[in-house]
């Protein structure tokens, strides 16, 4: 790998240096990246944008620009799915934010260094792990014939993994570790002096948290929540492997529409739904980035 890498690192630089001095190599080294992204990302993105606004007339084969796809994507079953996705992501992200904060606080204030390292490493691993294996691990545990379901008789108590709350429970498995990773630096940034100063002024433990710690943590917490929301919102593999389509989610609807399960004249509705998702994900990033910058100020 190193051998192939170095070939590419080297090739552009000396040639350019001879010809035009020192400024050109950067362009030459960056150009391949930009070209590949333009082809592999730009063309599909442009196709999605274009398709979201066009319909094809079945009889004539002519295409025309219209808002019909977008309005269609915000109606009926599609609207239900969009709202279902937003609700599921918001609920699981909120729960994960609270639980992640508690877990991170328990770990950060612990005297055992090894425990801290272990939890942070495990969080790094678990946060990167969603998808198919996670779905099957939970199906084997809490699914209809899962180990816990059978041994504890959960089915008689009305438990159903293939539901809204079941999915939320599964999502927490990668959302909580993500929150721990996000919030730990902020918790470490809380200076002991602030707590001591508050105590010297007669503040109780609760007052310290309410008036000092939480306001300082607020941008990090909100930023973490938004990041978690985006992560849960985009998740498809876990839901698809687990529930099929029994829970209305926008990702499942897009997959369904891509596989051809749409009404005549709505072939491009999957693209309109995708555009809806991109807009929401863009909104998430637009909220997240300023918050991240704001919280970084306190940690400097």
């Amino acid at each position: 790998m190193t051998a192939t890498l170095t070939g590419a690192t080297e090739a552009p630089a000396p040639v350019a240096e001879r010809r035009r001095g020192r400024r050109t190599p950067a362009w030459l080294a960056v150009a391949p990246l930009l070209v590949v992204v333009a082809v592999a990302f730009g063309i599909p993105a442009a196709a999605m944008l274009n398709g979201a606004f066009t319909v094809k007339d079945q009889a004539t084969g002519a295409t025309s620009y219209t808002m019909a796809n977008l309005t269609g994507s915000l109606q009926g079953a599609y609207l239900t799915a969009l709202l279902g996705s937003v609700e599921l992501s918001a609920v699981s992200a909120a729960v994960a934010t609270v639980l992640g904060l508690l877990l991170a606080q328990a770990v950060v204030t612990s005297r055992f260094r090894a425990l801290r390292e272990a939890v942070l490493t495990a969080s790094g691993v678990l946060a990167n792990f969603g998808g198919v294996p996670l779905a099957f691990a939970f199906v084997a545990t809490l699914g209809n014939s899962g180990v816990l379901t059978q041994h504890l008789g959960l089915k008689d108590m009305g438990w159903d993994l293939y539901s809204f709350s079941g999915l939320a429970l599964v999502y927490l498995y990668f959302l909580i570790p993500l929150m721990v990773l996000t919030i730990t630096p902020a918790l470490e940034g809380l200076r002991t002096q602030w707590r001591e100063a508050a105590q010297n002024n007669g503040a109780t433990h609760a007052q310290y948290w309410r008036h000092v710690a939480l306001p300082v943590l607020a941008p990090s917490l909100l930023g973490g929540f938004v990041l978690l929301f985006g992560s849960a919102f985009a998740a498809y593999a876990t839901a698809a492997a687990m529930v099929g389509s029994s829970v209305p989610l926008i990702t499942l609807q897009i997959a369904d529409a891509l596989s051809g399960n749409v009404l005549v004249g709505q072939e491009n509705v999957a693209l309109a739904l995708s555009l809806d998702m991109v807009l929401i994900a863009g909104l998430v990033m637009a909220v997240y980035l300023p918050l991240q910058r704001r919280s970084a100020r306190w940690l400097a």
Partner: protein
Amino acid sequence: MARLTPGRWAVLGLAALYFLVPLGASVIFSVDVNGSITFDAYSQIVGTGGFVSSLVLALELAAATITLVLLLMVPAMVALRLGAPRLRPVVEVVCALPLVVPPIAFVAGISTVLKWGPDHFSRTPFFQTFVAIQNPDFPIVLVLAYVVMALPFVHRALDAGLRAIDVPTLVEAARSCGASRTQALLQAVLPNLRGALLNASFLTLALVLGEYTVAHLLGFQPFAVWIVDISGSQAQMSVAVSVLSLLVTWALLLVLAALGGRRAPSRTVSRGMTTP
């Protein structure tokens, strides 16, 4: 803080329970057949149709993706450290773009583009390109998609590695010792990036091996898609394979974390020395 201790242990205990029980239960589920223990689900994995081919395909895709993404990103990132400050935000934005487009929306765009082949280009030589990149034995279109999806991770990993070393000073030092520009980059900069390169490669590997959305919706069958496909007929084996793939992925990521942890102190020291 002493009075908080019981609460802290309760939090840690509950967390351990939540994160460990699904794993333990999966193992029990995969070996328990009507009350007796059997390891059939594990021993039969290799012989099951599609296992070897899907795993090989996933590994090939991972190798190609890692090679391509590093070939594109390493020269670009190193060059940006050496100059061209105006290009830096461009690359940053380009590498963050995939975060705004969820995989499912990305694949919707890709499948639209792939439909252009038969629709618009079927009588041109260009059509062959569409056929070639969708070859089910080695779908290049997946490699391109995965490269795009890996960009944010690779960017973050390489950026962290490059932050820890002072590239211009390193190159100048090597040059003043008589190294050519090539040698300086090859023998001074790259070895210092080994940790970051490993990091980027592992994250990309984990991404490609676990990727389901794009491969499934474009109709290919690498490893993750195969697991779902067999789950209908062989539930136990799909869980067994999930457990194994989890353990392998975690082992890889733990190795990575251990490497990163050991390197961290020496990095800060070298940084303190190189930047006045």
